[in-house]
């Protein structure tokens, strides 16, 4: 029986998680894999915590992933990676931006964001961890809008994804306007 693959994308509403999810799904479909996904759409998109669940493989009933069953978490923000870490399989892989984004609640003293503690927690609890300096990536690539593709590239490099660069590139070419193709290709190969 072919192995199912469970992927979680998580971040903050507006960061581009939904497009990344669609790229993964499109690439998997090209490979002839069955795909089911579940998206956060609605109120949480206004700067709240959002997630997408992506399930690849034929032996899948529900679009949601059970806790402890994700092979890969792609996080657009480190605290969001920790928020979803209970979903990760033993020995699973995490690819995350290391750049913290502070919600207003932390600035006005309504919640805490201990950045070092959160990054350490990831380092201590994830064996296959890739930290992506997304601020540096944005400077190098000249755009902060392709973080989703940078992270997908890093996920391919981590070895936790059965899809390869060409699969994702093909999906990008079909979904993204041509004038952004070069930028996206650079983003995919950034890490």
């Amino acid at each position, binding site marked *: 029986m072919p192995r199912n693959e469970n992927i979680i994308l998580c971040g903050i509403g507006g960061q581009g998680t939904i497009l990344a999810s669609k790229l993964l799904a499109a690439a998997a479909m090209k490979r002839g894999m069955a795909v089911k996904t579940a998206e956060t759409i609605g109120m949480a998109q206004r700067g709240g915590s959002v997630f997408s669940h992506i399930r690849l493989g034929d032996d899948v009933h529900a679009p949601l992933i059970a806790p402890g069953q994700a092979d890969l978490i792609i996080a657009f923000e480190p*605290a969001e990676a920790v928020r979803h870490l209970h979903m990760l399989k033993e020995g699973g892989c995490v690819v995350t931006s290391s750049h913290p984004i502070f*919600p207003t609640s932390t600035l*006005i003293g309504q919640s805490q964001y201990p950045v070092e503690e959160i990054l350490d927690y990831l380092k201590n609890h994830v064996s296959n961890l890739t930290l992506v300096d997304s601020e540096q990536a944005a400077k190098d690539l000249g755009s902060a809008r392709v973080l989703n593709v940078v992270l997908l590239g890093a996920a391919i490099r981590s070895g936790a994804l059965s899809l390869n660069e060409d699969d994702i590139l093909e999906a990008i070419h079909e979904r993204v306007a041509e004038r952004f193709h070069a930028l996206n290709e650079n983003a995919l190969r950034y890490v």
Partner: protein
Amino acid sequence: MHTEFLMGNEAIALGALAAGVHLVAGYPGTPSTEVLETVAKRNPGTVHVEWSINEKAAMEVAAGAAYAGARTLVTMKQVGLNVASDPLMSLEYIGVKGGMVIMVADDPGPISSQTEQDTRTFAMFSKVPLFDPSSVQEAYTMIQEAFDFSEKYGTPVFFRATTRIDHGYEAIEVKDEAEYKKLPVEGFIKDSSRWVIFPRLSVINHAKIEQRNAALSDTLSDYAGNQILKGSGRKGIASHGINFTYVQEAMTEAVPLLRIATPFPFPERKAVEFMQDLDEVLCVEELDPVIERAMVYVCGKYGLKTRIRGKLTGDIAPSGENTIASVQAALDKYLGRAPKEAKQSDPLPPLPVRPPVLCAGCPHRASFYAVKRAMQGQKTIYCGDIGCYTLGNAQPLDMCDTCLCMGAGINIAQGVFHLEPDTKAFAFVGDSTFFASGITGTINAFYNQADMTLIVLDNSTTAMTGHQPHPGTGRTVMGQIVEKVKIESILKAIGLTTVEIVDPLDHKLAVETVKRVAAEPGVKAIIFRSPCVAITKPKAQSHVDSDRCIGCRRCIDQLGCPALILNGKKAAIDPSLCTGCTLCEQVCPVGAITGGDRDAQK
């Protein structure tokens, strides 16, 4: 046929198109919105599609078309059904000629709603048959069957899906446009004995409905959507919708399964067949224990000894969204399986709370802040409403004292005033909500001599649900350019003498206007007009001169704009979020923030 990767709501829309739908009407509401949007996008040119001003209007428009023999689809979220319930309750007594499907999106959790109401319960109350799909693929085929069913039995039918179906994606097989049904429409045939509801007709039709639904219980026992999956043992599981897939995920051996796709009329014969050799059945349901109650009833009616378990016996949580994990745990207990060992993990570090917030540069922030400043020190109540601006309740703005349902804030403000005349009562309502259900409340206030200030937050779109047009925008979902309905004209026509239109991003003017208007007697209105930042392109951005910034944090502590961040002890602005609205520039006591352009936001 071809394969497409579709959201559940898109599949529902394509299913309706394949079924030859002639007219689609709805009102936006998460998680239902994409159904109507997809029909509009994929319209072969033959379908009338409209965002009606509210769900009641949508239901009535669709009923009219169905009277004429057209196939019609109405879309709404579950609380929208409350608004549309008046026409629906009567419509079931009258019936339809063309197939009429009422697509209602339920929201277990709730994730984006006020209530966890169950449309399956509404189906029983209104006597309207209901279809409840378990996957995106099934939603596509089932809605086509729902149209045929509606037409065959001359009744509107519910098509109910929950968030995980509506916003789940699957690659599914769909028909090409050439394969869509093309059905003729007979037209409206005058017959007052059929289309005019009078008590005499109601009593006759009520009897027919009861008879029909009793017969449908038997018919639906043979419907393929109500299925038994064979297994071994004397314990069975009954489920529905997305929960059926959670049960399948949580199964380790073949336990007898019953899946109910038409909870009303309940397929009794099918349930009896299922329970024949079972000692116990666990009903795995979300929202109300609809199947569970029906199974208990069937056991009583047919003298079965099967014990029915579920929400009523404490085996399934009585409220909230079910998950694979919660269903797994319930099945472990029910089937006597050893629960999966919980992974011992270290306690998590504190995580930042990240609720949804008003966007950076959102004009609602400026409107709320102006009212807050203007009314400082006075006894006030701020009645909020449904939309992005409900987020005005968050700290540090804290400008939403009540929120109930669409349009309620205007009337709640009056109630408070009548009992507490020394309270300055404010009602905040968005432009789309004003059209949907704010006008009657305003007339009520004017007629019944309330003293209140109506604040219309006019951002020229239905923002929260993804920027749908409405009567004030001058566009329709079909792309027509139409005469704009002006909110100020409506308010003046009601009789309000003070109707001010102010740019909320002009902070000083906004505060002065609120002070002046709120001091006047009677019902008066301020329209804060500034477009939603999500649909405008900012041309300039503000930045902080850190040499001038004194680190007083006034901008951060007063406004709570997500673009305002701290750099050490001083304020800074995240350029990826700032829209240059200039509100923080106007709030800064030392003029350390410059560079924005509030007119560039228009």
